[in-house]
């Protein structure tokens, strides 16, 4: 069984928002609602500064706090390690939004259901790539099986020493090259 994960290379990301737009199209989201949020981080002291653009979405944590706090079991982890929301079980209590370390969840105010990045589970089931990955103009995103040592995603993590945003906050499945 595959265990899906992703690498995001912030050094390659140009902040064009193509991933966000394709994600919104794939998930039929309104303009103001989005699963990918862009953060900027400046480090160093002028003139030696580095400006990073860091796209953040659901990190599909292995020990996801949203899954354990959800009172209705609407949020669950699939066998492939993808964290999903069952829209028919969610009551919209927002406990998962409060519990998420990455602020990656958003509430759909038409249905009241809390949603977030789903690693495009329906595309992945067909053997395709998630929309954000296939649309990325600079190949900053790589998606694949973390358990397969020969997958591109596994090789890249090792080669680039990619790290989760905050390994101390739980085992995330999105790794960042920074």
């Amino acid at each position, binding site marked *: 069984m595959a265990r899906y994960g992703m690498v995001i290379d912030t050094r390659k990301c140009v902040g064009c928002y193509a991933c966000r737009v394709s994600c919104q199209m794939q998930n039929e989201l309104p303009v103001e609602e989005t699963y990918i949020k862009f953060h900027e981080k400046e480090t160093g002291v002028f003139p030696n500064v580095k400006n990073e653009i860091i796209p953040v979405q659901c990190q599909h944590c292995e020990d996801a706090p949203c899954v354990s706090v959800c009172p*209705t*079991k609407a949020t669950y982890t699939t066998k492939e390690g993808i964290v999903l929301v069952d829209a028919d*079980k969610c009551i919209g209590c927002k406990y998962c939004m409060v519990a998420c*370390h990455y602020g990656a969840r958003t509430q759909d105010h038409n249905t009241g259901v809390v949603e977030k990045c789903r690693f495009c589970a329906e595309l992945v089931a067909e053997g395709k790539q998630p929309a954000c990955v296939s649309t990325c103009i600079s190949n900053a995103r790589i998606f694949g099986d973390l358990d397969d040592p020969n997958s591109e995603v596994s090789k890249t993590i090792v080669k680039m020493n990619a790290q989760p945003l905050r390994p101390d*906050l739980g085992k995330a499945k999105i790794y960042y090259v920074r």
Partner: protein
Amino acid sequence: MVWGTIIAAYLFLAGLSAGAFLTSSYAARKYPDAKTVRVVGRLISPILMGIGLLLLIVDAEAGLKDPLRFIYLFTNFSSVMTIGTYFISFFMMAAAYIALMELLKKDTNKIVEYVGVVFAVATAIYTGFLIGVIGAVPLWNTAILPILFVVSAFSTGIAGTMLVSAIMDKKVIHHVMSIKKIHLTLLISEVFLIFTMFLITSSTNESAAQSVAMLLSGEYSILFWLGLIVIGLMVPIGIEALEIWNSSKLHQSQAGLEVAASGSHGITATLITESAVLAGGFILRYLLLAAAVPVIFL
């Protein structure tokens, strides 16, 4: 604020309801003559919890549109919210039964009342655990928070019961001095707990330090100092201490005892104190939700 004023009101009402239930059970045993306090506590408890639950349902948009989904609330035992749902269900059943017996003027089943006491305490603690287990918000993620919530719940419960009792029966509140003493102890503990929590958590974590700064000197400082500390805690502590002091002086002379027994003082002090405690109890929960700075993950 993911969780806003509605959730603050719910947390406040759940604590108040649990506290009122405990106050009435205590009064029933300690002061069989102070019938008003017992009856008021027993009646307001399920009503306030009911209002709190309605607020919760209104805030849960997806459930509001499809109410059958609320049954799923009982399914995930790793969630504090599920455990709380059980606590509240048992507490509500016991409180509603006791209130009904009181209305029908029948004797209550002792066992049901003890079950009610246990689940009232559980309900008050649960409101603290609910946000206390959230690792993403360092201000909440402290062992002191559930204790603070319990102390505040009992104190607002006493306040709510005494406030309504004073309006119903001017004399009764002067006969229940030990309730006032417990109340004063709770309020003083609350001041201590708030500052312990702020001091310790703000020195362990950057986000918590930001939260505490927002409360002590930033955006919410006026509400914190004036609303919570002065009105919610210092004013009631001052008035209650004076009342207890005066009453103990009265009991030293025969004439004083007669005055005390006739219960001829006014109720203004009680009305001010208890309203201030209730305002403080709500402000405390509102501020804790409003100043919730999440962990910085970048």
